[in-house]
């Protein structure tokens, strides 16, 4: 069985909006309208075929940024000296990490290829690597670029690239792996979390694969992958019932050859972009599509976004926005300014998702786990602040600011620029104001009954509607369960 595409007569404004919000981070009414007018095939292609744009690199984009302090640490004699150099290293790292986070968020907000960033976000959660252990912003940035570069190509190539990625090599200990004592961490996770899922390999497969992923080292001169033949175990390995002197790439080829790999990856992609399903037939169909295109992610994603199930009742408004989606969507759909990096990182932490800091190699659980009483209360507070201007004090940013090297408290961001979205004549027509805000905020047409409540809210206000009233309405829309889902 293969997937069946969405019937043309069901391609409407709301279907286009759903596509834009899931394949990207949503958009303004004009963008949705434009996508709708293209028809499904061209709309999907306009998103999926877009190429990564060039973008100014982050502050950490220098492989040698830690060199000076590392040298100082080596030369430090007394414990006090060492401690003070470590403190500087730490401060530099934290500064670079919060800058890197803001760099990526800025990219997600401003890019003309939002699908590329969304897919990068998916892979970041899939190959979840954390600064907690990697401790080098440069390497995490390189990994992020790797995911962007390879994330829409062939899946086997992506896994091979990831196996040589310095951040991953530190994260899952391949750099520590020795011929005599292979480290099993990467070998296990590459099967358990990246390709097959638990129960689809044996402990002996893990041990044998670990031997194949030896000899992976990082070149200190340029912080890139280096193969160390002396550390590689070139002996015979018996992996998944095949014996040979396998290397890491050959192991990956054998893994990707397993039908289970297609099921695992296709199911996970579907969960991220559409919804979590226990429908075995649907997963089989998705897996067949993935194999039919020889694991080429770009054509596969076109199939995903064309499928009628992608637009079905199980998909629409069923997904709780991740904190990243919550944030980026707000900035892409409304004229509000991005706060400083320390505020951004703080807000992500309060909501339970700091990019580059997944809680474990499993990534973020997502779905309902995004929401507890604390994270929801924070989302509501933040939503109101996004509209009225983010006051760091008001959202609870602690002082002193370890993140901010200057020690100056970040400024309050400007409030939502009402004039950019509501015209003078709209202010005389409350239903226009509801319509315009509703589409931006909920990413669907205001034909839904929910809009009635907001019309009533404005019904006895004096005209023309002032900025304060309009911001109040926007904040109200955003402090609802409905705003938390897409």
């Amino acid at each position: 069985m293969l997937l069946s595409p969405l019937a043309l007569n069901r391609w409407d404004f709301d279907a286009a909006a759903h596509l834009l919000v899931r394949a990207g981070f949503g958009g303004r009414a004009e963008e949705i309208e434009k996508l709708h007018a293209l028809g499904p095939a061209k709309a999907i292609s306009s998103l999926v075929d877009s190429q990564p744009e060039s973008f100014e690199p982050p502050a950490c984009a220098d492989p040698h940024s830690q060199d000076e302090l590392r040298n100082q640490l080596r030369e430090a004699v007394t414990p006090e000296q060492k401690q003070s150099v470590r403190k500087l290293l730490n401060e530099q790292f934290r500064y670079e990490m919060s800058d890197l986070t803001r760099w990526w968020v800025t990219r997600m907000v401003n890019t003309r290829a939002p699908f590329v960033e969304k897919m990068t976000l998916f892979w970041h959660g899939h190959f979840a690597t954390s600064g907690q252990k990697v401790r080098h912003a440069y390497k995490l940035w390189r990994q992020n670029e790797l995911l962007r570069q390879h994330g829409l190509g062939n899946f086997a190539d992506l896994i091979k690239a990831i196996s040589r990625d310095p951040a991953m090599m530190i994260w899952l200990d391949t750099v520590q792996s020795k011929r005599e004592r292979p480290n099993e961490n990467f070998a296990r996770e590459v099967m358990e979390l990246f390709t097959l899922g638990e129960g689809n390999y044996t402990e002996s497969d893990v041990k044998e694969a670990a031997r194949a992923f030896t000899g992976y080292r990082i070149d200190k001169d340029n912080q890139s992958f280096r193969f160390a033949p002396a550390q590689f175990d070139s002996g015979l390995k018996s992996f998944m019932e095949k014996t040979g002197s396998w290397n890491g790439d050959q192991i990956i080829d054998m893994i990707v050859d397993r039908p289970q790999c297609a099921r695992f990856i296709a199911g996970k992609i579907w969960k991220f972009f559409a919804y979590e399903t226990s429908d075995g037939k649907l997963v089989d169909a998705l897996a067949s599509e993935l194999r039919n295109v020889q694991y080429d992610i770009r054509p596969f994603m076109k199939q995903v976004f064309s499928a009628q199930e992608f637009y079905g009742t199980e998909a629409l408004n069923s997904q709780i926005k991740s904190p990243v989606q919550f944030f980026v969507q707000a900035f892409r759909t409304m004229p509000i300014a991005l706060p400083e990096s320390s505020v951004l990182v703080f807000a992500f932490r309060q909501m339970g998702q700091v990019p580059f800091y997944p809680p474990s190699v499993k990534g973020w659980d997502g779905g309902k786990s995004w929401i507890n009483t604390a994270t929801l209360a924070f989302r509501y507070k933040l939503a109101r602040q996004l509209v009225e201007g983010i006051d760091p004090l008001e959202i609870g940013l602690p002082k002193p600011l370890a993140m901010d090297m200057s020690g100056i408290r970040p400024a309050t961001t400007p409030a939502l620029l009402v004039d950019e979205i509501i015209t003078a004549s709209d202010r005389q027509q409350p239903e226009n104001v509801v319509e315009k805000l509703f589409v931006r905020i909920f990413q669907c047409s205001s034909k839904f009954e929910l809009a009635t409540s907001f019309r009533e809210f404005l019904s006895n206000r004096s005209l023309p509607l002032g900025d304060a009233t309009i911001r109040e309405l926007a904040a109200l829309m955003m402090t609802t369960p409905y705003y938390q889902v897409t």
Partner: protein
Amino acid sequence: MGAALSWTVPVFIQQTCTFMHAQALDSALQAGTGRDHPVLVVIQLAGGNDGLNTIIPFEDDLYFKARPTIGIPKNQVIPLDNGIGFHPSLEPMKALYESGNLAIIQGVGYPNPNRSHFRSTEIWQTASDANQILTKGWLGRYFDNCCRGEDPTVGVVLGEQLPEAFNANLPTGVAISRPGNLGFDRTSDPSEAHLFSELNGLEPDAMSGDSIGSLSGPNDSGLSALEYLQRTALDAQVSAERIKRMLRSSKNEVPYPRNQLGSSFGLIARLIAGGLPTRVYYASQGGYDTHAGQANTHKRLLSEFSAALVAFCNDLKRKGIFDRVIVLTFSEFGRRVTENANGGTDHGTAAPLFVCGGDVNPGLYGKQPALDKLDSGDPFYSIDFRSVYSTILDNWMKAPAGKILGREFPKLNFV
């Protein structure tokens, strides 16, 4: 567009309320009134507390050999029993020990110890084996098993985030970072407040009464994302109102140290006294990762800790509720026996922990780890930390420990 069309507010609210009412009826396995049930307070000493400089084997030459610069001189140690004693910063806790309110469990750890902060914390939080990944926390599993249908404030965290130990099937647990910051911002505009309540399924009149006892249903699996969100919004609102009310009705009877841990302990005492139906409180103190220049840092941390703990105990005694409360401390690991070249210690394994309360069986439990028999530089554990959890769950919380922890662990008798 069927799903989207169901964004019909009144119907949605009606369904959710019916659902919750039905859940409330068959819930409450361990309903707490807030006045009589046992309370557990968990204090995380984050970063890996140096156990060997907390409970010190001051008569063991190997201790001084391993720690020529950071070892605590014999004449400064506060002797307890069996050749071990307190770090001088724990002086305030001596009275607790002597009055029979403190149990010290020595050599607590687990097999195949992991020396990563992150992973070892996860192991302690989820009560897993070293090679096992569990997604639910040990306290979360307690909530799921014993507190279904309870008020979300069955677990309260002083801090910004719920710890992994609270991960549960249910959205259980409330985090308080600043009491002034609880729940949702109220607007002064009544029509706006009204619409906010309506859209979130909150009934403003019902909020302040005692009538709402059981809100969280037993299982979220049947809830759609929207229903789940609405229920969490209600939980947040109700618990915020309730906590504010408790805080208004209760004061601290003794001064607390003016630091984060002190104010966390102070708030916990007020919430217990106020009658919040909470079974588990959780707070943490960070900074124990003393790789370098340990002496001063550790001295300061332990002073803060002991002063706050003792204030808390005295406050509870004055309030007459000390018998209802136990405090459990833990840290993800102890530290290496031999000091490093930076006047600090690196990540280790087994370490002692404290259990403190009006109704504990005091004294020393377990063996002080032998310093002549080490596992790559670290002491072997003698008590599995899950034995401690198991004892607390079974003997103190009256909960089925074996079911919650996945298997039976030998119990101790400190409670």
